[in-house]
């Protein structure tokens, strides 16, 4: 008997018991739908995390001062004052570095003629915008002349602008920080929340020289932003920074560095690691569901073999070989599980699309995952269908014909 013939026969046998077949498929349907939704959630979450990380500037490396132990108390990373603007200048000479910006971070009250707002003020160089890949919405950003001239200019984030100048154009207005008036020359585009949940738009950006001389009075930097030319350059640039700064700070081998380096790839990996854990959990649930579905198929196929003993006897007596009977029942099991898999995949895709709409994710389900899920359900059919089919094939024709 040809395969198309066998499959046609199996489909007819299953359609004859429509509701039973559907109920039998349910386990596999749920299992495969769960797999597809899981993959969609995983892929969506990872895409969303990496989009946010890329938003920060994917090739970004940050250098912060190291820790400081004073009278036995360790102040923690970032507390020491060890980074200078000259360090930043030196870093620009490392091959693979596309831009460097010093950074000075101050928390202060910003006052407009009508309102005031506590925010994070960050002093940087003009290259900062390129490093963060953060366009200006209105107005301009300051240039090198402004940094050199310690200019009293600032660029506002959207949240700050909304609070200080509600419903107005802030460009050209003046804000006062710690008694110093700054002219607003530009407005940043809206960035939204960061991967860690902070409002990135709640910020005011000024030249780092102005921050040091007019606000903090310090000569040391709080942070150095370095951008590698491309993702592959991140690690080599990072180690070049370490050796350069160790040399500049005269740190002997074996003593701890007075600075620390982070790159966003580490943060991205941590975030996708969390997504992975969730995926593994859901995949385990899906696997259990497929297993239960397979047992359901085996159960119903055993019932079916018992019910159709006379039919099997007849088929044997008109000349069916045992192998043909095995093929027939195995095909029924595989058609059951594979159709269950296909229905489950469609439901899963629909579910993934629904979740994507609700969570504003990209619901990119890789086609490979769907194919694997359906193929796996076919395997479930073969595995759990074999025993009932073999039982049918081993029946004695006379015994089978006598069965009631």
């Amino acid at each position, binding site marked *: 008997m*040809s395969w198309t013939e066998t499959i046609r026969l199996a489909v007819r046998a299953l359609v004859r018991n429509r509701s039973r077949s559907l109920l039998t498929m349910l386990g596999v349907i749920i299992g495969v739908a769960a797999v597809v939704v899981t993959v969609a959630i995983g892929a969506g979450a990872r895409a969303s995390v990496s989009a946010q990380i890329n938003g920060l500037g994917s090739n970004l490396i940050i250098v912060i001062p190291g820790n400081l132990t004073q009278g036995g108390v360790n102040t923690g990373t970032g507390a020491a004052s060890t980074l200078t603007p000259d360090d930043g200048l030196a870093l620009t000479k490392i091959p693979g570095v596309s831009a460097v910006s010093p950074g000075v971070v101050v928390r202060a009250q910003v006052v407009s003629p009508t309102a005031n707002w506590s925010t994070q003020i960050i002093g940087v160089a003009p290259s900062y915008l390129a490093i963060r890949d953060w366009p200006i919405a209105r107005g301009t950003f300051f240039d090198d002349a402004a940094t050199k001239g310690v200019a009293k200019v600032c660029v506002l984030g959207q949240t700050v602008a909304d609070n200080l100048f509600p419903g107005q154009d802030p460009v050209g207005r003046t804000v006062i920080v710690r008694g110093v008036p700054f002219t607003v020359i530009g407005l940043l585009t809206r960035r939204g929340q960061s991967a860690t949940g902070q409002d990135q738009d709640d910020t005011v950006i000024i030249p780092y020289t102005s921050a040091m001389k007019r606000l903090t009075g310090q000569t040391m930097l709080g942070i150095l932003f370095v951008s590698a030319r491309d993702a592959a350059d991140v690690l080599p640039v990072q180690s070049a920074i370490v050796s350069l700064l160790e040399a500049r700070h005269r740190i002997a081998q074996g003593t701890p560095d007075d600075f620390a380096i982070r790159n966003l790839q580490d943060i991205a990996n941590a975030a996708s690691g969390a997504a992975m854990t969730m995926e593994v959990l859901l995949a385990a649930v899906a696997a259990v569901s497929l297993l239960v579905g397979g047992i359901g198929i085996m159960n119903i196929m055993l019932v079916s073999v018992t019910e159709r003993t006379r039919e099997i006897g007849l088929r044997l007596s008109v000349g069916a*070989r045992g*192998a043909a009977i095995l093929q027939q029942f195995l095909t029924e099991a595989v058609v059951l599980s594979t159709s269950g898999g296909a229905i489950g995949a469609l439901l899963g895709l629909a579910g993934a699309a629904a979740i994507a709409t609700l969570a504003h994710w990209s619901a990119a389900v890789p086609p490979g995952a769907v194919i694997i899920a359906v193929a796996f359900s076919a395997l479930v059919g073969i595995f759990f269908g074999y025993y009932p089919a073999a039982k049918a094939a081993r029946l004695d024709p006379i015994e089978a014909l006598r069965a009631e």
Partner: protein
Amino acid sequence: MNTPVVDVRDLRKIYDLGEQQLAALDGVTLTIAPGEFVVVMGPSGSGKSTFMHIVGFLDRATSGTYRFAGHDVTELSADDLADIRCKRLGFVFQAYNLLPRTSAAENVELPMLYAGIPRAQRRKAALEALGLVGLARYGDHMPNQLSGGQQQRVAIARALVNTPTMILADEPTGALDSRASEELMVLLARLNEERGITLLIVTHDANVAAHGKRLVSFRDGRVVDDHPIEHALAAAR
């Protein structure tokens, strides 16, 4: 035409019941020539059904030899026996054994399915076979839409469809009323007469037996009588 279709020698079938052994067949020797119409009779437990199952390759003898159409089939594998059942034999059972919710034509097609005959050809042959049993217009009917006699004729069409050497029928009229069973026997006799198909029928109904040409009687697993049937009834027919 001289080679017997069935040639069994000293056939024994022993069932081991633990403490005692039951001989369903106790040394049966018999030949059936091509074109014969043999009726097997005997009380229940006489071994006639066991004999038919072994001759029909549904069961194996414990000892003895079986030559089918000149070939020794005693040692053949289960698959070879299935192939002989498929291409050389036709079966008719007391309970019709049609597949439910499957049309008459498709029921008739069943043996051809396992003979690997393509679909279009199967349909044509099935309708021809249904024509031979007088059910040409019933191809699309489901078994539950047919009378008992009609269902049994579908079963005969199914037995005929692979142009077998021999048709074996186990109590073919057992579930039919006397008129339907008379019609069925006339049909079988005609197929034997016109197409030369060898027939082996097991029955305990003397009216059925009267249609045959040779009567073999079984008792206690042995052939106790074997003689041609006087055709007084056949002449009257």
